């Protein structure tokens, strides 16, 4: 399988050259193959958000190399990074980040607007995506008329708008109750299984990471564990929910 994400020896320092210089990532190397549902799991302060920013082309590492879907991110200029984020990455945020006072449909259309897709095509694709996440009935609603779970489903449809190489989900269920969180996770599984979409899930919850096919553990700016889960997906156990089922 082709590598979609290839990070090599990524070092990220803040306040470079100042007395309070701080190294957050200490040389991370990892790669994610096409069609994999991977998760990066770590406690807060482990550097996973910094890593996500780099993977999402929102930030550049201080040192190291990063190739996304064959494109050298390190060498890209600002406008090129915008285009990469637009076409290759679909973001799903913990706080949904839908544009307020703008209908669900317009929100999903937005990335296509920046891509320069024609209006008719934009509308049709947005409708199709909203139908896919089960939000067709509410596509003219604005975010403040939607529940958290509904907002996150719209956000997933938006992430899919430009058919990106990867979907980067940052704690997508963090603000949701377990039931709606479940719906959202199910959509990710469906996207991964039915459409072969590469998904990177960033989470602090090991039980969510266990649902994914590839689990990368990060701690104090280093990768501390990396394993393949041969049986990804949600497997409710008879055991209590507090004890996540771990499969080897």
């Amino acid at each position: 399988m082709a590598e979609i994400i290839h990070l090599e020896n990524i070092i990220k320092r803040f306040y470079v050259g100042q007395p309070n210089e701080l190294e957050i990532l200490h040389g991370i190397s990892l790669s994610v193959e096409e069609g994999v549902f991977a998760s990066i799991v770590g406690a807060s302060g482990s550097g996973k958000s910094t890593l996500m920013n780099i993977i999402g082309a929102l930030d550049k590492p201080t040192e190291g190399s990063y190739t996304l879907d064959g494109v050298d991110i390190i060498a890209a200029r600002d406008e090129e990074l915008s285009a990469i984020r637009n076409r290759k990455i679909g973001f799903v945020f913990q706080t949904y980040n839908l544009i307020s006072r703008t209908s669900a449909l317009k929100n999903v259309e937005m990335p296509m607007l920046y891509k320069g897709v024609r209006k008719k095509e934009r509308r049709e694709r947005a409708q199709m995506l909203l139908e896919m996440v089960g939000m067709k009935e509410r596509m003219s609603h604005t975010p403040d008329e939607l529940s958290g779970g509904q907002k996150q489903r719209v956000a997933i449809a938006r992430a899919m708008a430009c058919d990106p190489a990867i979907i980067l989900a940052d704690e997508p269920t963090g603000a949701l109750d377990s039931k709606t969180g479940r719906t959202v996770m199910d959509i990710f599984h469906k996207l991964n299984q039915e459409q072969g979409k590469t998904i990177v899930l960033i989470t602090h919850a090991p039980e969510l990471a266990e649902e994914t096919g590839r689990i990368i553990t990060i701690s104090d700016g280093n990768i501390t564990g990396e394993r393949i889960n041969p049986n990804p997906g949600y497997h409710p156990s008879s055991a209590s929910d507090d004890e996540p089922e771990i499969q080897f």
Partner: protein
Amino acid sequence: MLILENVMLALAGLKANKTRAVLTMLGIIIGIASVIAIMTIGNSIKGEFSSFADSMGADQITLYVTSKSDDREDPYMFMDMGFERKGREMQKSDYMKTEYTEDLKEHFAGRISGISLVEEVAEKGTSKNGSLYAYVKVRGLSKDCFNTNDYDLKMLSGRGFYDRDYVDGKKICIVSDYYCNNMFGGDTDAALGKKISVVIDKKYYSYTIVGVYKYDNTKAGGMFSASSAKDTITDLYLPFLTAIKQTHNTSGYSSISVKAADLNEIEPLANDIVEYVNEKFYRNNDHYKVKSYTMTSFIEEYMGQLSSVSIAISAIAGISLLVGGIGVMNIMLVSITERTREIGTRKALGATNNSIRIQFIVESIVLCVVGGIIGMTLGIAIGMVGSKLMGAKASISVLSILVSFGFSAFIGIFFGYYPANKAAKMNPIDALRYE
């Protein structure tokens, strides 16, 4: 494509934040409204004055005799006001003679279309026939008078004067319809060919009516006339030579009116005539000379003053536009701070710095232009009401509308650029994390 989307977005934003939008636009609204109102009122006054000046004869050059010590630049219409003549009183030889007019016509052939001479025969004469009576002002007109605005007669019946009437000195006259109403029961045709007598200074003079004109009571003289139409003093016109014969005026005229052939050449023509006449006829006169005044110089001076006054007031009003612009900038800065997360999200979704910049500049332009349109409507309304109140015909200054529309868009760009640029340069990570 992005522009249109941004305009729609900005309009939706305005709708969602009505109170704030209106308060922000208020500065622009007041600024634009006052500029347009002032310009409209100024324009209306100008238009009114211009048509007034036209009716006074824009193509006329008045040549008048004045003391050699008279060095006033612009005596205008009130030549003799507050000016004391030095030296001796005017004598017969100081007046302009009828021959001068012939000389001028010849010398300035092509540049002068006529010289009108008016011989004032009597301020008030009385025509009586039994119990019927009418008051008349008797004036002798030269041929060229009939081309001017002052004597633009509308004939109701009969004829005007023919060329030979000016040379054979027959006692014929033209009377007004008012005169006919008083003397002939309003039958203008019946008056034709009738011999009438007019008492002037207790002497009887008789004339034969050849024509009847329509009296225009809006012209000067009408305002000062007696209350009833019956007692109105209307003009009775004689051919110039007839009038001269009656008055035995041999001294000449203190002023004559020259009609210019070309409206654009009035000032140089006036100067040339003055120079010519002074050189030829007043060279040896130690006390008197001729000077001229024209409507154009008067109009230009007046218009210039009016323009500077309205520009000055507009400039003051423009300051409120500036303040309005600062208000727009302020609210745009607040708006981008509030929407930091949105900016971060848009950047994460692929918006370039430029598209963020355009979005906020468009928003600022929309804010200003909407304010501008409201202000424009308000300004036109105020201007029209103001013009009405001042008794002038409202004429909207198209230029001021274009200028203020452009200016409000400019304010939008100018005061929107800094906030928009600030938004464009935001770091997407910080913007996304902004609480």
